[in-house]
């Protein structure tokens, strides 16, 4: 599984192989050059001997060192720039792919996943992936090159001393690994408790008004304290133990340093090495340990990045809705809708709609009624092809809607949902959703028709007032009016209204209903209805119960039948 993800990452980077190659070469060159500097310094120091200092030799070593320093720094900087570019552009590509797939995913998938989860894949997982990649590129190669070059240089100066440094240094990796393996479970526990605490915060702060109204404050505080103390203990342990890595590796390095010092000094006495050589080796000994620590850090980071990449790829690879490319568009829509022996369920073990038949002629008004939670919105899902039927077929103008493009079908419907949804942007942006090229006059006249104009006019910037995220600054009624205006402007041949007027105040509703009357004239409309007036003016009433259509007919027919509808109706005004 991990290998598969790695291959995907490799494939992503494939068309950047030139940049990657450049990055690797630059890393190698800059590291080797920078590691050569201590040798030059060492040689210069060797010339500083009490009996006659060779200034011209010192000068030549030092000027060579100066040139190398500049070149090496320049290469480092270019490498950093290339790495940045590769990483951020790769992540941009992955984000783009993920988003494009979100736009194509079946609603069944979106409905079945928490938004937060999908969101964190595109945002934080992608970020983590970027961090991991960047760290990988900038430290992994340089780390490896550093290790081998250092080793080579040390061996060239004094093989015996180099062996001591080379053999002892990796000890620090084992120490780091040992500590890391012990912190893992603590961190896991910490994030569990943190999750628990966040859930509590979310509820108690989100529901703070309920907490206040029901005198729950003291108990809320106690519950919070309990989980907060638990978190403290775990976090303290996790933080402490994980912070041991650096001191412990530093200690190992100090030991290595002392050993190199000892062996090195003896070698100088024995004449196997110069003092400058010793100073170079000591400087290597400190540098040699660093990449080992870094690499082990990078490996953890990379593992994390791979997990994140996997979650992203899962989203990207999720099969989209079957493509409708090449399918014909719906012809001119006059409003004939047919439903033939349709079966549908959200999950196979809970059958919902069974063998449902319906014939709607142009201009007919279909009211869908039933108790709360009876599945009235399922029909909308099927008509709009948010979900596909399990068997049977739905036709518009005699064409099976599964055989035409979704766009042409959806353009035929104007939809106002119970959960009004506004995009961030201005009031105008929201109204013109269905007709981007609408003129100002058209917009205003649509808004006037739905009586939204009067409140829009009073907003600080009129039609150009920004709508906060989720329509925050508007009341539920105003949001609904905007959604109705949206449909009013785009004048589709068929309408789907989901309890569209339920949260508009009675007075405005009266006007909106009149406007709707105008809108619905000669249009086929499906209305999930709560209002008696809407129901009674419908040409056909579908009565739903437990997800299934149990009765259909006109008000008079259904009353005469004396079934479930009559029961519903009679209870409406009962004492």
């Amino acid at each position, binding site marked *: 599984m991990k290998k598969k993800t790695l291959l995907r990452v490799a494939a992503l980077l494939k068309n950047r192989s030139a940049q990657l190659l450049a990055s690797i070469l630059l890393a190698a060159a800059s590291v080797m050059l920078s590691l050569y500097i201590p040798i030059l310094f060492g040689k210069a*120091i060797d010339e*500083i001997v009490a009996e006659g*200092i060779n200034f011209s030799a*010192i*000068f030549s070593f*030092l000027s060579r060192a100066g040139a190398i320093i500049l070149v090496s720094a320049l290469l480092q900087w270019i490498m950093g*720039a290339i*790495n*940045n*570019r590769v990483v951020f552009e790769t992540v941009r590509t992955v984000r783009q792919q993920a*988003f494009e797939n979100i736009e194509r995913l079946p609603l069944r998938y*979106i409905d079945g996943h928490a*938004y937060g989860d*999908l969101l964190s894949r595109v945002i934080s997982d992608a970020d983590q992936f970027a961090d991991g990649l960047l760290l990988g590129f900038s430290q992994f190669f340089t780390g490896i090159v550093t290790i081998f070059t250092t080793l080579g240089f040390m061996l060239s100066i004094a093989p015996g001393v180099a062996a001591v440094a080379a053999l002892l240094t990796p000890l620090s990796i084992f120490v780091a690994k040992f500590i890391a393996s012990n912190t893992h479970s603590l961190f896991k526990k910490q994030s569990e408790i943190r999750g628990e605490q966040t859930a509590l915060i979310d509820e*108690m*702060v989100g529901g703070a008004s*309920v907490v206040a*109204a*029901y*005198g*729950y404050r003291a*108990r*809320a*505080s106690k519950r*919070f304290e309990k989980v907060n103390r638990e978190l*403290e203990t775990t976090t303290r342990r996790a*933080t402490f133990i994980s*912070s041991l890595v*650096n001191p412990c590796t*530093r*200690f190992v390095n100090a030991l290595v*340093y002392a*050993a190199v010092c*000892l062996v090195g000094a003896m070698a100088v006495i024995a004449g196997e090495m110069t*003092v400058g050589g010793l*100073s170079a080796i000591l*400087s290597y000994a*400190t540098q040699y340990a660093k990449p080992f620590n870094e690499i082990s850090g990078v490996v953890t980071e990379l593992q994390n990045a791979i997990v994140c990449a996997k979650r992203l790829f899962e989203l990207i690879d999720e099969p989209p809705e079957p493509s409708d490319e090449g399918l014909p568009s719906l012809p001119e829509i006059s409003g004939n809708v047919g439903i033939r022996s349709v079966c549908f369920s959200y999950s196979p073990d809970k059958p919902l709609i069974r063998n449902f038949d319906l014939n709607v002629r142009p201009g007919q008004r279909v009211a869908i009624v039933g*108790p*709360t*939670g009876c599945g009235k919105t399922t029909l909308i899902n099927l008509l*709009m092809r948010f979900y596909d039927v399990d068997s049977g077929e739905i036709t518009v103008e005699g064409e099976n809607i599964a055989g035409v493009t*979704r766009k042409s079908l959806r353009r035929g419907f104007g*939809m106002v949902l119970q959960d009004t*949804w506004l*995009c*961030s942007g201005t009031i105008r942006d929201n109204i013109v*959703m269905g007709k981007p090229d609408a003129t100002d006059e058209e917009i205003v006249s649509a808004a006037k028709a739905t009586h939204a104009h009067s409140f829009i006019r009073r907003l600080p910037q009129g039609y150009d007032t920004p709508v906060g995220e*989720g329509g925050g600054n508007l009341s539920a*009624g105003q949001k609904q009016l905007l959604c109705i205006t*949206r449909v009013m402007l785009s004048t589709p041949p068929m309408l789907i209204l989901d309890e569209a007027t339920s949260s*508009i*105040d*009675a007075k405005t509703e009266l006007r909106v*209903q009149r406007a709707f009357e105008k809108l619905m004239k000669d249009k086929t409309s499906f209305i999930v209805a*709560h209002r*008696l007036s809407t129901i009674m003016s419908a040409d056909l009433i579908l009565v739903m119960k437990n997800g299934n259509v149990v009765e259909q007919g006109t008000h008079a027919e259904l009353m005469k039948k004396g079934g479930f509808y009559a*029961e519903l109706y009679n209870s*409406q005004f*009962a004492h």
Partner: protein
Amino acid sequence: MKNLLKYFRGYGKEALCAPFFKILEAAFELLVPFVVAAIIDRGVPSGDKVYIVRMCGVLVLLGTVGLATTLAAQYFAAKGAVGFCTNLRQALFDHIQSLGFSERDLLGSSSMITRLTSDINTVQSGLNMTLRLMMRSPIIVFGAMIMAFTIDFRSALIFLVTIPVLTVIVVGITLFCIPLYDDVQKKLEKVLLSVKENLVGARVIRAFCKEEQETEKFSQRNDSLCREQKRVGKISAAMNPLTFVIINLAIILLIYRGALEVESGALTQGMVIALYNYMSQILVELIKLANLIISIPKSLACAKRVSSVLSVRPEMQNGSDKTVDFGTEYALEYVGCGLRYSGAAEDSLENISFKLKQGETLGVIGPTGCGKSSLAALAPRFYDCTSGEVRVYGKNVRDYDLDTLRGAIGFVFQKNRLFSGTVRDNLSFGAENADDSDMINALKSAQAWDFVSEKGGLDFEISQGSSNLSGGQTQRLCIARALVRKPKILILDDSSSALDYATEARLRSAISKLEGNPAAVIVSQRVSTVMHCDRILVLEDGRCEGLGTHDQLLKTCAEYREICESQLRASEGGAAS
């Protein structure tokens, strides 16, 4: 920001010990080049192997002592930082719960949640880092310089120039990048918003065939994020090469200068190496500091945000009266009440008056935004009226202790929510001592027992956000939660809107038969919900347009008639009787 210092309470010792041990550790580390210089100058020329072994022993000893002090420092830093943030989190949580409705409206719940979670976590890691490393780096840097001065004054002057230059570069680049990182963050939030909208609004976007435009919009935001990231990356990537160049050039100078000094006999070869080592130590330390320094402003910004929430003071003063005289004639009286929200230009309520005896019901009806919810919110003192007064059992609500006042009232919100946990947990939310039969009775009255018993009774687990319940079921459970408190005053703020007419009718009749005979205020947009109340108050634009029974209002109140017409038109008002 200073107001945060007190949360070190109980952890002050740790917060001071951590940097202290860090300083010790740094001091031991600074001695190492000295020892090496001694080996080279004394041990090597004379070939004194015993001396060399002894000095290497000193190096090991320094490492060991260094380890011990670091361990102590890390322990105290972890304990201090985590303890501080635990205190802070608790204080912030309690503070938020102590705020009034108006303050919380202003702050917004999602921002309060962020303060409590990620902001404090960032403060914690920043503080931990600061306690551990912020002390260490300056000490190593300046300590190295001081050590250099003890070796040779003139060579040390090179340190004196190099350190400020390095500081300017590290701090300068960091400060320059901080606002750029903010920009990146803002761009990222835009990308996030795009994704969120396309998930939440998937149906509408598809219904209007907006997929391509949305993809285009996302792509622009995504590109602009990427551009910004590359820009910051380019600048911050210059830091390491620059510091590298400066330190190494300084070493070149040191060696050259050192050579001159050795010739004049002022320095030894070992001392030159020691100076060289000190300079290298500074480089290593600065790189660490640079990586750290980026997270400091971020932590500070988070701490500032937390602190600003903590400094919000609740406006509402709590009363002291803890007794309610239930024998008083009127359970609830509004006397010329007016309400203007802070910052609003107009009154939301003007001169509202009514009286309600035990057992009576008042219906409140009117268009969206007319002030119905504001009216309901005055009785439990969610907001204080800005003119007039509200009396509960004869006393001004401002005189009561808030918990006492709210304890007498069962309030069901329009935007209500249940909590994760069992049905039993939720029902005992406002009534700790309720037993099962109390709960079942409340559920029955709220028309919720049918589906609750079907789902497994009082132990049915409600998931977070009550996602395993329909809107109507949630509303009924919320009503049950209020009823189980056996309130003397019941206020339903448009809280049965998701119920169908049949269920609502049954609910209404159950409420009229409640034991304890509460006075009830029922707010709704539906005529059918309020038409049977003892009195109905018609509200429009915050003003009372009529107060009377259904029949009276039909005759006298034009607004009421209009509402009735729109809703009962089809039945011509006939089905009403």
